[in-house]
């Protein structure tokens, strides 16, 4: 029995078991009620669900743990045997060999020599044995779970309460899982960043004004010591990269805030219903365009346009100008700003508008003097969220912004951004644990902190809005 067929069979069997457990429990509670003449605590279906859950959930959890734990254990054992068979190979090659072994065992590739063939056969053999053990264990666990639940089913059993408890724990588990994932990602970032900062000083990284991680590699042999020297001489200074990021994001905001805010004002308070019903979906279409499409719009249309326009008036505009990337990014976040601002403006109570109109304000006066000032904190929150999005945006700048880290705030020149640098550093044939690659994680954690601070500030400011309407 192969792994796949055994799993499919197991799955089908599990489903059948679930139904059987449900039906048997159902019958048991009915016969109990009929025999004893008492009323069951819960609806009969809850007893069925109770038995089905006891049959399925413990077995599923075990299957999940097994899937993560069993194979790595076997492969580790195989790797240990390989180390004995090939004593001269370095550890990284042994890992490759072990991976190769799995592929041979699965029948994807042929064995290069006899040792590998024998080891693969042994691995396959042990995997099959473990697999059989797994199927049997799971079936047993299902049976035990079922019997445990089945025997407890009496009219006194609070099946509904138990089901409620199960649901509550499931929701809790989902929430914890989401948080754990986030923590996992952040800690891996932190760990790699820590490795980076053990080679490059934080002061050089955060305050250095020269960024050229690629150059530092070309200068000499690729040893950590050389990189460290190159780094400490200023190659890993993130100031120009961060400055470029902020410049591009700022240009994006200059485009998106006026257009987004004004269109939100229009759709929220001025547009007749019919017009609103056209404009809002149209803006949402803009939000649905993949960023890569914006990217080549920026690279192929906007950037040449700005360069040619610059030439007409005698300005030297780079073909990868911050202006083009930022401008297109601004178009991308218009729907974001207009949709958030629309929500904020619509949240201003109608009673305030009525009050202003009742005093003889025109609609524009009502908007400018009452509604917008009331909505101000919420709007600032929306803008901060949009800014944090612009800072983290990747695809447009990868395609349209430059690679060279120029220390400039001139929007006509080419700048690079944090996200572009991370992409540059982590794609291509790079050794994964070089200082150069590690610097991507330092950039990543910095970017994360910046956007986190922006988001927290946005939340904090928006929360004031609620207080003002009491």
């Amino acid at each position, binding site marked *: 029995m192969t792994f796949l067929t055994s799993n499919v069979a197991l799955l089908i069997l599990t489903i059948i078991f679930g139904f059987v457990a449900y039906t048997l429990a159902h019958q048991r509670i009915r016969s109990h009620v009929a025999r004893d003449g008492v009323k069951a605590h819960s609806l009969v279906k809850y007893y069925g669900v109770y038995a089905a859950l006891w049959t399925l959930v413990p077995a599923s959890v075990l299957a999940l743990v097994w899937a993560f734990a069993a194979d790595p254990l076997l492969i580790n054992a195989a790797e240990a045997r390989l180390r004995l068979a090939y004593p001269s190979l370095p550890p990284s090659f042994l890992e490759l060999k072990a991976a190769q072994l799995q592929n041979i065992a699965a029948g994807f590739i042929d064995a290069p020599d006899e040792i590998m063939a024998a080891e693969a056969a042994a691995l396959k053999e042990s995997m099959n044995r473990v697999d059989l053990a797994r199927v049997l264990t799971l079936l047993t666990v299902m049976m035990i779970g079922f019997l445990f639940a089945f025997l407890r089913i009496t009219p006194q059993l609070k099946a509904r309460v138990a089901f409620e408890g199960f649901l509550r724990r499931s929701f809790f588990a989902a929430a914890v899982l989401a948080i754990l994932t986030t923590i996992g990602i952040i800690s891996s970032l932190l760990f790699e960043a820590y490795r980076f900062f053990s080679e490059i000083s934080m002061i050089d990284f955060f305050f250095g004004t020269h960024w050229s991680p690629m150059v530092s590699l070309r200068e000499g042999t690729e040893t950590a010591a050389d990189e460290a020297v190159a780094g400490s001489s200023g190659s890993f200074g993130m100031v120009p990269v961060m400055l470029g990021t902020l410049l591009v994001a700022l240009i994006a905001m200059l485009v998106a805030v006026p257009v987004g805010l004004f269109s939100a004002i229009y759709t929220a308070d001025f547009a007749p*219903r019919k017009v609103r019903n056209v404009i809002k979906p149209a803006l949402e279409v803009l939000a649905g365009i993949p960023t890569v499409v914006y990217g080549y719009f920026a690279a192929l249309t906007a950037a040449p346009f700005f360069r040619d326009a610059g030439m007409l008036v005698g300005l030297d505009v780079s073909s990868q100008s911050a202006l083009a990337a930022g401008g297109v990014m601004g178009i991308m976040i218009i729907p974001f700003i207009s949709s958030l601002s629309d929500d904020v403006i619509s949240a201003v109570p109608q009673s305030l508008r*009525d*009050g202003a109109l*009742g*005093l*003889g*304000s025109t609609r524009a006066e009502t908007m400018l*003097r009452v509604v917008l000032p009331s909505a101000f904190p919420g709007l600032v929150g929306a803008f901060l969220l949009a800014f944090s999005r612009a800072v983290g945006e990747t695809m447009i700048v990868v395609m349209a912004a430059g690679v060279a880290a120029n220390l400039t705030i001139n929007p006509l020149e080419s700048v690079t951004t944090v996200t572009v640098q991370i992409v540059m550093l982590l794609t291509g044939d790079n050794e994964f644990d070089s200082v150069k690659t590690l610097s991507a994680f330092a950039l990543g954690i910095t970017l994360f902190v910046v956007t986190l601070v922006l988001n927290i500030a946005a939340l904090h400011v928006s929360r004031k809005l609620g207080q003002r309407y009491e």
Partner: protein
Amino acid sequence: MDTSVEMMSDSKLKAQKVNVFYAEKQALFDVSLGIDEKSVTSFIGPSGCGKSTFLRCFNRMNDVIPSCRVQGQILLDDVDLNSPKIDPVLLRARVGMVFQKPNPFPKTVYENVAYGPRIHGLAANRQEMDFIVEDSLKKAGLWKEVSDRLNDQATGLSGGQQQRLCIARAIAIGPDILLMDEPCSALDPIATSIIEELISDLQSRFTILIVTHSMQQAARVSQKTAYFHLGQLIEYGDTKGIFTRPQNEQTEAYISGKIG
């Protein structure tokens, strides 16, 4: 109904055959009545009877609701408010309105009162504005309580104070008429009695129309009362008469608490 038409000749405000529709649904049917100058007139009736809708006809606040249509004539000093020549913005400067829930702007106390005079250009300088603000707050009976915190946020005032601030805000632009849409429904009994006293004080300067759910309030503050039911004006006359000798059995049933 004949009596009300007779009374109309010298009325400040006159409604003639007013019909109001929300989309297809008719909310008011042929309502006609005349309102005396410098008096308090109350509109009573069960929820959804159209009394608030009728009130909002007098400053064209129904314009704000897109689906709302008003037919018939509303005459203020014999000029039809619904004629295209009337600018609702200027009209609302003459006909102030106080709403059900206190709705001070999220600005300072001073700025709330100064808002109307400012948009209508009523004060040439800071002294004049200071005078208008102080005068309006005094008329609204709020000056003593807030004179030392004019620069505090208005939303920090108590509910009753907020509602009096809204009254001050409305009278700061010097209207002839004040519309009050259940001005005490969100207030406690003490704040309510303060506002009721205020309404009696204001009566010497303004023509006041008040919608209320409380029949005791109508009896206490108004000289005339109109009873509405399902969009119809059922009975209109002296408050005393309405409450002691209602002519219509529906009015009697409502006043005596049998329906409502």
